[in-house]
């Protein structure tokens, strides 16, 4: 297995080559405005070391924050036609009803609500009003809308109305990009619909970005399939990622945690990723980040994305430092570190300056920070450790001591001993943990559904079968599938021993 992992970050585009379970080479290139150039540069830089010569590459896995940034910055978004099946229910809360007004203005191309949808037990709620769907599609066409988000009541249980409506819309609008909310998972109409609307809003950006990635790989001369890393630490094939860009939203943080697991050989540990501005703390369970299971807001929109449960605090290598009284962060010099830090001739004292003064880092001009005495430096490290310790303790979910893996460029701020931590582990290539995480990503499948009149073990087995099939459909090798999450929850008030089961399986990418 030989893979290239790429992380397109705000400052650098990192690339690593992994061969038979080892990091062969890691390189960095500046991220470019057009994305393609930065990726091409990093691939060229990797190629120039000779490690790729004459070798077959099994996959290029790219992690990117492109899509989430577009939503947060309100840029490159497509107008969306929202079609909801479920009338007469939920009429008082139409699509976009809980969006921030500025984002809704940009994205809302039109809203159509027609009869359809299902009950919690799979009975139809109302028959699908096909004539109304066709009429809506005609109106979408007249308005020039080409990206359609379809949602339906209880579609995670029975997606048939969404699928039928998608066929009818496609017949009227053959070039439309259609997102069905049932492809985005969970129970919770508004949140699932919101995910579908965001996904549809990213239709053009997704097409262009994936095309740019493909071009960069082709231009570099590497013949390998492209995969895009997902929020949950797995990858999707490029064609599927193009269809569901929202699943790539939080992949950067996930990749760094997965990379940390891989580089350290640990599958259950806390991970602290110290960047220039922020420190992210998360927890690895079975080699994957623990997911947030409540509502996650993206750009002000409530969703139920599969996102890692992370705590971010304002501590990093570029954090502002004041000595009396002692204060570290949350403000940071960010990407201006090599210009504004005192050791680099600037005026702002940062944690990196302190590390240089105390000999922890060999960088910049040590003479410029010689005025910092050992006691002051110690005070700064103690304060940084206190901030990190508090964040780590908040994210810990077990009482005993656990190992902690420290990655990222600012990992020097994490001391070797912390309360509640059995061991602090620093790893080689830890500064490229994101790209490593991308390179080793797997494929997943998930099932989240209500089962009725079934004994618990049968319900879990049924869910597992569905999740397995979904993983294989997404490109996994069936022989390598394993279940990494299984939880079941009996449902209050519902009759017939109803139980909601959520199962997630992962497997290696099938050889192509």
């Amino acid at each position, binding site marked *: 297995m030989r893979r290239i992992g790429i992380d397109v970050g705000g400052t650098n585009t990192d690339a690593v080559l992994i061969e038979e379970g080892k990091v062969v080479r890691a390189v960095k290139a500046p991220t470019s405005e057009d994305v393609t150039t930065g990726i091409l540069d990093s691939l060229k830089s990797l190629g120039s070391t000779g490690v790729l010569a004459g070798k077959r590459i099994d996959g290029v896995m790219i992690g990117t924050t492109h899509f989430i940034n577009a939503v947060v910055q309100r840029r490159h978004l497509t107008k969306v036609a929202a079609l909801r099946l479920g009338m007469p*229910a939920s*009429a008082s809360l139409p699509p976009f009803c809980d969006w921030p007004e500025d984002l809704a203005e940009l994205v809302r191309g039109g809203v159509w609500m027609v009869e359809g949808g299902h009950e*919690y037990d799979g009975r139809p709620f109302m028959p699908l009003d096909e004539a109304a769907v066709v009429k809506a599609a005609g109106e979408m066409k007249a308005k020039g809308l080409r990206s359609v988000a379809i949602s339906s009541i*209880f579609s995670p249980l029975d997606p048939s109305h969404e699928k039928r409506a998608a066929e009818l819309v496609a017949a009227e609008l053959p070039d439309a990009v259609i997102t069905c909310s049932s492809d985005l998972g969970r129970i919770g109409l508004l949140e699932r619909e919101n995910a579908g609307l965001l996904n549809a809003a990213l239709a053009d950006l997704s097409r262009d970005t994936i095309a740019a990635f493909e071009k960069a790989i082709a231009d570099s001369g590497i013949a390998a399939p492209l995969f895009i890393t997902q929020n949950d630490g797995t990858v999707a094939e490029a064609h599927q990622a193009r269809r569901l860009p929202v699943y790539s939203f939080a992949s950067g943080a996930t990749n760094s945690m997965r990379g940390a697991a891989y580089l350290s050989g640990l599958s259950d540990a806390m991970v602290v990723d110290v960047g220039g501005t922020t420190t992210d703390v998360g927890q690895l369970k079975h080699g994957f980040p623990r997911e947030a299971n409540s509502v996650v807001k993206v750009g002000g929109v409530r969703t139920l994305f599969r996102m890692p449960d992370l705590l971010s605090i304002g501590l990093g290598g570029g954090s502002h430092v004041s000595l009396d009284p002692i204060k570290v962060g949350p403000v940071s010099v960010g990407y201006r570190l090599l210009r504004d830090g005192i050791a680099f001739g600037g005026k702002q004292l940062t944690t990196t300056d302190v590390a240089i003064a105390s000999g922890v880092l060999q960088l910049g001009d040590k003479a410029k920070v010689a005025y910092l005495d050992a006691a002051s430096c110690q005070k700064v490290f103690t304060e940084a450790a206190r901030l990190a310790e508090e964040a780590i303790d908040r994210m810990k*979910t077990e009482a005993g001591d656990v190992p902690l893996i420290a990655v990222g460029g600012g990992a020097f701020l994490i001391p070797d001993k912390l309360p509640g931590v059995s061991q602090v582990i620093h790893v080689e290539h830890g500064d490229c943990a994101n790209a490593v995480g991308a390179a080793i990503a797997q494929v997943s499948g998930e099932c989240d559904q209500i089962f009725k009149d079934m004994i618990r073990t049968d319900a879990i087995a049924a869910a597992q079968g569905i999740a397995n099939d979904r993983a294989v459909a997404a490109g996994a090798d069936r022989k390598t599938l394993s279940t990494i999450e299984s939880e079941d929850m009996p*449902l*209050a008030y*519902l*009759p017939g*021993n109803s139980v909601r089961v959520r199962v997630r399986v992962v497997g290696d990418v099938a050889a192509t």
Partner: protein
Amino acid sequence: MTLRELSLDDIEALAVGAWVLGTGGGGNPYLPLLNMRALYRDGHRVQLMDSADLADDDWVGTVANMGAPLVGQERLTDSLTLARAVTAMERHLGRRFRALMSMEIGGANGVRPFMAAAHLDLPVVDSDTMGRAYPEAQMTSVAVGGLTPYPLTAVDVRGFESIVHKVPTWKWTERVARKICVEYGSVAATCQPPRTGAEVKKWGIHGTTTKAIAIGQAVREAQRKHDDPIAAILSVEPGKLLYKGKVLDVARRATEGFLRGVLRLDGLDDWRGSAMTINFQNEWIVAWRDDKPLAMTPDLICVLDSVSGEAVGSETVRYGQRVTVIALPPPAVFLSPRGLDHVGPRAFGYDIDFRSVFEA
């Protein structure tokens, strides 16, 4: 007589405060709040009235949704359907209501009467029948008072209307209405058995909407100022801080149509090394500290997010959450021997004598 028009800010606060008074159950008021925002945007306004301003022979409609919170996440709560439950009752009775009222102030049902009121142009009485949330129909002040347990209307958004015309007890009201609700798809908008002004004045739990708004305002104000929101709640309510900790485990099981289980917490700060477990049946029922009962129903046990101060529900509480447990004083009607029969620890199967954390 004075009516007080609620501002949208009051309603935002009501949603936060009602969720706190939900004591773990009652459903998150988020969707009712979204409905209220939309109604206010469309120019609707709602009025709050004091129960003392009711005439003895006025009639008051008690509004609540019934059903599985999960179904409510797909079939979203709808203001017109709630209003229809009320008009169906008025038609059945052949009388008009003077005002509406909450059945339970705790959780989503604390906001729903206002959704109906916005369409019907009726005021909402500042009283309810639980002072919190409870899982069963006989766990109300009006049931403790032995008031008539019928009729009840249950409507569905598709136009179905059912009436529970006559039943002998509140347990039967619950049983028959629940059957209708399940057939509808496990969600129904209901107008509970009608009350006279005299009954509301005698048996209602008063000032609970105002109380929920005050709690919500305290939390929101503290969030804005980055103050401690839990201290803010305790500054407006005579509550008691019981515990701070982290969720270690939550075991859930559905029995007899309820979500039952145990929440286990590990202490933080002053409570380090001390364990708390809380039994729940939709709502938090008994909190045990180091295996001794510390707080129990009808005292309100509120589990709050330690950072935001907002309530944490028994359906959504999860591993690792930082929570603070406080107790709020119970409505006096539940402290009588008859009240304790309905909602004391034994009503939930715990063989312990009720002892309030507010005694001594």
